[in-house]
């Protein structure tokens, strides 16, 4: 319940978006998000919509930028996590949960973004290797 939290689903969806991409990644992101929303106890929508957006952006970024250095996923993951949380805040506001202030984003999003981005680097590498090994 502390401010910085590891979001394993985000890391998994991001890594898959980087490694494999495609519509399958979007479908899995949507399913995972729906499941998270339904069992978490929170309102329905934040994860169902944000996770496919992350998967799509990850896939889009790697399709167009094609970075050669694996560590370039660090700033991308950082940016995507911030966008992911902003999406969640926007969707929560859309649902009618208007209690989130700017300080929430500073307190929760920024430390979590850093933590998840650091974990995302080896996760992306590992998943992309596993995927490629499976492909060969």
């Amino acid at each position: 319940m502390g401010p910085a939290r590891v979001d394993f689903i985000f890391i998994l969806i991001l890594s898959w978006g980087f490694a494999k991409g495609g519509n399958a990644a979007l479908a899995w992101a949507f399913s995972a998000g729906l499941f998270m929303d339904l069992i978490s106890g929170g309102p329905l929508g934040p994860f169902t919509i944000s996770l496919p957006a992350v998967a799509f952006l990850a896939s889009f970024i790697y399709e167009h930028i094609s970075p050669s250095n694996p560590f370039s996923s660090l700033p991308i993951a950082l940016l995507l996590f911030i966008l992911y949380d902003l999406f969640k805040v926007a969707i929560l506001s859309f649902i009618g949960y208007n209690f989130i202030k700017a300080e929430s984003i500073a307190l929760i999003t920024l430390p979590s973004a850093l933590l998840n981005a650091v974990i995302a680097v080896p996760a992306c590498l590992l998943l992309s290797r596993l995927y490629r090994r499976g492909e060969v």
Partner: protein
Amino acid sequence: MSTIKSFPGSGGAKKASWRFFLLLITLGFLLSMLYKAGLLNSAQNFILTIASPIQYGLSFATSSFRQIVDSLAEFRNLRKENERLRKELERLIIENIQLRELEAENRTLRELLHFTQENPIFDYTTARVTARVIGFDPSGFTRYILINAGQKEGIAPGMAVVTERGLVGRVVNVYKNTAKVLLITDPSSSVSAYLQGSQATGMVEGTPDGSLIMRYIPLEAKVSVGEIALTSGLGGTLPKGLVIGQVIEIEKKDYDLFQEVRLKPSVDFDRLELVLVLKEVSH
């Protein structure tokens, strides 16, 4: 170099379709609106009925694993001694609060005795339902927990959820086997309260950092650090006298209409495992 070659940026990722993405987002918003309208309650009820035993198992496993890690990390004797002293301190604090409350209550009851004898009204008894916390909201923006007690156990929206240390929150949604509890630390939570020492009243609201703020305290009230905040019972949903937290900071400005204080919650929300749901039964 092999690392660089194997990185997906070299062209491994497949293209995600814009159309499919938009379809999923539209579907997501549609589901969200249906949820908001309350049309997905039965679907959520069904999923939670299936998922709650799994969540219960995972919660139990996580809790057991954490206990093992804790045991390894600390010296055994030191831990035992610390635990004993902590419990003793908690017991004494709670006993002290209860005694003070009883003293005040006794005074009031003496005054009301005559009235109540002549005007019999319905009374309340408190039943307790012990429930295990089986899920947290992972977003960090909202603060809910799921407990493994629901309609079957007679849980209803509005019921207070507590631990031996104080108020946890209130039930907001009830499903067949589970219930959703809005924690008092959620920014949308608002609890009518009073401070034990100064008897100042106000509203306790959650904050994003997990602490609590008591607002709308009259400026003339003499509040001091260390005072205990308790539920006032106003509003009718929460019973009076549940411990909420302790004053750690006072913010008072001459030009404001009210003063506000920051509270440290009495409940450790990071280690919530078992909670009690207070059922109010009228006779």
